[in-house]
């Protein structure tokens, strides 16, 4: 699997004879038994894309159903299964792994000047674990589904639901170990395998973001694992620690569940923020404003994210004193995110800005993430949360962050590093068009949902009062546009792998070690491990790579 011939001259035209990680070996075994982080990243890319469209299909069915107040498509029981599976698949099988397992796996070793991650076989194992978990969940989806909501709240999930609670919980439990192994690999790699001269404060901010995300993977995921394990036991034994009959507290389940699931939302956004720092700097031709603030804010988010989970439980009967603590801490956690937005904006100021597709996604992120984040403050405030909890306001809030934020950052990153990963350029005209379609479709889908929530429409309901129909129809129309918007990149990106123009090592003129290798890179990444002597985002220097040791 290692290459023996590597052309190290930049821009050398001998593409067809050059050996790189994609053509170093052929055959299905060379892919299914690979330990090359770049190939594993592609294995993940394929699986995650599949799960995205499966989860998206559930969303499409939901929005079609909701064009009529009495429901247009399915029975209420089925509707419950649709929103549950949409949530489970999108959260656990798309958003959580998305950037870390694809872009993270591909880029972490390259950005730090390493040949691979610290534990390549664990990396492959983590993909197989993901696949096994996904199979359990998909099996459950087609053999009865799940109707508890992705949150699995007890006692409905432990005692009353007649759906496939245990198989889905098992699928999520298993996939959690995939995350844990990825996080473990990243932490050890970043600590121990940086190239000489690459101090912490010379690292790309994407690496800081991956490190912070990995901390959450490591410290949070085991708790949801034990929680789902306990839920499964209670369901199978018909007795357990959440059972009030023996003195149990169903709310305790929620404490354990949200202890992971709140930091999980930061797992979903931190990598996107890391991508943002890379995109904004490259397409403004400027170094990041306030590097240490952005880097430390990633760490602050990772830490504070573990202190706020009770804000999901304000109306459950949780103690008001705990609610006060969680509310204050939730306001606090907004600060590091805001710092990032200020710094990205300041980076744009007086930058030389170009509007290729990755930058369109990045600019969209700034606006949409800010809206999502600000609406979170309404929810962090105890009194307003009483009105807004359980309504479409929450749905809109998290979709602005997860879709308007995380998915846009993911697409921006995929587009940005696509030439590096595949050695091909995609058609930028179509890419910009798709980005605009996605932006319009997204806002049309989710902005009306803020209004619906404020007006009182509850979430997870299969029917609704007739006065909400107009807004629902707008949202469903937006969803159709959004769906088409997502299909367009799928088409041209796949097309480009065969027919796109061949890419040079650095089509964007970006800074970073990954851009100093050929596109696609050789299996070993670097013939010689570089020695680093300058800071990150050295856009002021017109001759990249000259100062390398």
């Amino acid at each position, binding site marked *: 699997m290692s290459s023996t011939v590597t052309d190290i001259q930049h821009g050398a035209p001998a593409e067809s004879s050059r050996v790189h990680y994609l053509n170093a070996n052929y055959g299905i075994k060379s892919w299914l038994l690979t330990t090359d982080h770049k190939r594993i990243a592609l294995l993940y890319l394929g699986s995650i894309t599949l799960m995205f469209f499966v989860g998206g299909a559930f969303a499409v069915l939901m929005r079609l159903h909701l064009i009529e107040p009495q429901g247009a498509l399915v029975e209420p029981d089925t509707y419950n299964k649709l929103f549950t599976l949409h949530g489970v698949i999108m959260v656990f099988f798309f958003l959580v792994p998305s950037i870390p397992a694809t872009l993270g796996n591909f880029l972490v070793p390259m950005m730090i000047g390493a*040949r691979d991650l610290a534990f390549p076989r664990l990396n492959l194992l983590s993909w197989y674990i993901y696949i096994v978990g996904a199979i359990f969940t998909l099996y459950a989806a087609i053999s009865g589904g799940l109707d508890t909501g992705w949150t699995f709240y007890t006692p409905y999930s432990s005692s009353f639901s007649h759906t496939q609670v245990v198989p889905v919980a098992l699928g999520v439990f298993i996939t959690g170990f995939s995350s844990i192994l990825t996080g473990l690999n990243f932490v050890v790699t970043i600590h121990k395998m940086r190239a000489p001269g690459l101090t912490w404060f010379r690292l790309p901010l994407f690496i800081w973001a991956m490190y912070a995300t990995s901390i959450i993977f*490591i410290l949070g995921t085991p708790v949801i694992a034990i929680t789902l394990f306990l839920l499964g036991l209670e369901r199978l034994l018909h007795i357990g620690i959440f059972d009030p009959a*023996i003195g149990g*507290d169903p709310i305790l389940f929620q404490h354990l569940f949200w202890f992971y699931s709140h930091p999980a939302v930061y797992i979903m956004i931190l990598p996107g923020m890391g991508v943002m720092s890379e995109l904004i700097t490259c397409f403004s031709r400027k170094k990041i404003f306030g590097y240490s603030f952005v880097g430390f804010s990633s760490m602050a988010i990772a830490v504070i994210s573990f202190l706020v989970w009770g804000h999901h439980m304000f109306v459950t009967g949780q103690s008001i004193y705990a609610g006060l603590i969680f509310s204050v801490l939730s306001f606090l956690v907004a600060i590091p995110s805001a710092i990032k937005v200020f710094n990205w904006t300041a980076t744009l100021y007086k930058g030389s800005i170009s509007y290729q597709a990755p930058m369109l996604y990045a600019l969209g992120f700034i606006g949409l993430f800010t809206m999502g984040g600000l609406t979170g403050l309404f929810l962090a405030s105890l009194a307003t949360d009483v009105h807004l909890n359980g309504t479409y306001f929450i749905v809109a809030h998290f979709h602005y962050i997860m879709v308007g934020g995380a998915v846009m950052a993911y697409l921006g990153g995929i587009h940005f590093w696509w030439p590096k990963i595949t050695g091909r350029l995609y058609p930028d005209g179509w890419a910009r068009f798709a980005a605009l379609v996605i932006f319009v479709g997204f806002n049309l889908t989710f902005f009306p949902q803020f209004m619906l929530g404020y007006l009182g429409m509850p979430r997870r309901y299969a029917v609704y009062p007739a006065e909400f129909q107009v807004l629902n129809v707008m949202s469903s129309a937006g969803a159709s546009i959004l769906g088409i918007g997502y299909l367009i990149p799928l088409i041209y990106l796949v097309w480009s792998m065969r027919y796109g123009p061949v890419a040079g090592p650095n089509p964007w003129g970006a800074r970073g070690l990954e851009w100093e290798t050929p596109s696609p890179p050789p299996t070993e990444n670097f013939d010689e491990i570089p020695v680093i002597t300058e800071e990150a985002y050295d856009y002021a220097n017109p001759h990249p790579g000259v100062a390398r040791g």
Partner: protein
Amino acid sequence: MADTAIHNAHPSGFAHQFEDMEQQHEAGSLGMWVFLVTEIMFFGGLFACYAVYRALHLPAFELGSRLLDVRFGAANTAVLIASSLTMALAIHAAQTGKRKSVVMYYLVLTMILGAAFLGIKFTFEWRHDFVEHLVPGFGFEVRPEWGAVGQQVPMFFCFYFFMTGLHALHMIIGIGILTVLTVMASGGRFDEQYYAPLEVSGLYWHFVDIVWIFLFPLLYLIGGHYAMAGGH
């Protein structure tokens, strides 16, 4: 004895993503410590639930605890502590260049002690509890003499079985790992230069011991101060 003479540029077991054995060794250790942190949080979830319910239902927990046999718990604690000693001695033997049979001796001794732990737990304690109808979900019988808190005694036993069960599962996995290590040792894989798998597995084994160090007082000794007055 290991092939120390034929290590060339890199000794056996060197992985090419690293620069040298030192980096590999450090990465392996850090990796195992990070994994143990995930285990702290995994068991931690159970311990946190235990803390909640013990605070809310202390009388029921005391009653349930008194129904456990402290002698078996204490004996098992001693067995596990001894197994940690033998594990440490196995690593020490490799580090100081002892013959591979010495390393294997200590590894096998560790496995025997681990198996003894499981034997005591499953064949004496758990079987007894099952026969006495003290296993939640398997015909648990609330005794009338337990009084008002009787309904919550099953909660204590849920924790007893879940926590010792999860711990036992980790022991079984540990014995599996030790088996692999013993086979590796028999092939002469370990010496003063290369013993990282032993060290890293030792960390895991000691962690499982530490979990039991907490399980023993938290499960067996809550109602202990009544034991002389009648116990189980």
